[in-house]
């Protein structure tokens, strides 16, 4: 009987303590950052708006390999490969449906050329959902983004305009197929 009573008193006491402790929070400073008035600091690796970058020569980095599209868990990236007259691959169109995008950054991880990058910009809301479908011209920037020196075609074996066979990094000049010399 007394034990049960004691238990009930303890229950009520703990509730009262809770009430008191929560009441004290009334005098704490709020943690809220008042976003539109006060801009929060966005970290450089924040996964926000997606951009397409250019390599140090100013050419489009994207080679339309489709790896971002296949890595995308919501399948919101679609593109079509085409190539210029020198054999350089680039996307004919590159479309991201941002109304589906979950900003997971898998596309950036999958990209073998550092073309697709996520930026700290997160202010992408639109009133019309159709406006959230972005094409290449909306995403392509005139810079290298986070990776300044990487140039995919300088390490790839494929010849493109301005870079012939054997002219990439760590390559020997093309072999003479008519020679049998060692």
């Amino acid at each position, binding site marked *: 009987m007394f034990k049960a009573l004691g238990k*009930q008193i303890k229950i009520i006491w703990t*509730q009262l303590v*809770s*009430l008191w*402790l*929560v*009441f004290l*929070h*009334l005098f*704490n*400073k*709020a*943690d*809220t950052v*008042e976003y539109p008035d006060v801009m929060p600091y966005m970290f450089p690796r924040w996964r926000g708006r997606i951009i397409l970058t250019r390599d140090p020569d100013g050419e489009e980095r994207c080679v339309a390999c489709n790896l971002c599209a296949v890595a995308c868990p919501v399948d919101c990236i679609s593109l079509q490969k085409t190539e210029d007259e020198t054999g350089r691959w680039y996307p004919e169109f590159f479309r991201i449906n941002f109304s589906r995008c979950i900003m997971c950054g898998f596309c950036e991880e999958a990209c073998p050329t550092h073309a697709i990058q996520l930026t700290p910009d997160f202010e992408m809301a639109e009133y019309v959902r159709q406006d959230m479908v972005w094409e290449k011209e909306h995403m392509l920037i005139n810079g290298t983004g986070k990776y300044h020196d990487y140039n995919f075609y300088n390490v790839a074996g494929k010849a493109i305009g301005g870079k012939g066979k054997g002219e990439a990094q760590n390559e020997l000049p093309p072999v003479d197929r008519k020679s049998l010399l060692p």
Partner: protein
Amino acid sequence: MFSFEVGSLLNIALVLVAGLVISIMMIWVERRFLGFFSDRLGPNRVGPFGIFQVIADAVKMLAKEDWIPPFSDKFTFVIAPMILPIVMLMSLGVIPFAPGVGVMDLNIGLLWIFAMAGLASYSTMLGGLASNNKFALLGALRGAGQMISYEVFMGISILGIVVLSDSFNLREIVEAQEDGWFVIPQFFGFVVFMVAGIAESHRWPFDLPEGEAEIISGYNTEYSGMKFGLFMIGEYIGMVVMSAIIPVLFFGGWLAPFGLEFGNEIISGLFWMGAKTSFFLLFFVLVRAALVRPRYDQLMSYGWLVMLPLSLINLLITGAVVLYQAG
């Protein structure tokens, strides 16, 4: 039979408007204070201090599609949310705000409150039943069980006051506290009444009928737009009624404590009644912020095994003391 000394048109308008405005503003007040209690700011964007948040909410609710589920019982579905604000406003009518301020002065004022609180449970029950949705039905069952259970010892808990004041008339109960608030002789009655009152208006932590962790949103799962808004308004009016009835019963109503009366008795009465009501309103908010929701079985066993004995003992002792004093 009925005496309408306070029932002037001005009075009715004043009480109705003030009651509704306070109830609606409570939505904003509650959200802001919940924010403060959890180190946030709460809604502060619409108007100064976010005071017009409620208007924005109301506009949103009114603009929403007024959707009635095709599988529901349509008539009942529409009626159910109306019951709650209506009966809660009716309860508001008997509350004595100050001498000469109020809608009705009923001999059976206390019973009227109980009657209305009993009717309020129909809103929950019918809303859940008419939705034809298993979660709504579960919520309605919970609501009905909870309200019936807690109404029992809520009633018993205030019998001590009736015994002490010798009246069901709320104005007479207030006047009977001239010599000292009933909270002192009726402390256990006060505790039981307050707990039961929270449960009765199914506010946190006793909001099991809409326990969203288990049953989506309980009895109002299928409700949206202004029909949901009516449930919400009704709940907040209930909260105001409950916060007003506690000072009336236990804290001397409009009577100023320690002789701090000023001006004429109406001004002073309204001030003190308002102050006491506000205190309990904020207390309800604090309770919501601080306490966690019990399980349903805990709620029921707490009611029947703790509150009921407590209220009965309280009644017995009060009765004994009164009989002893009467000789």
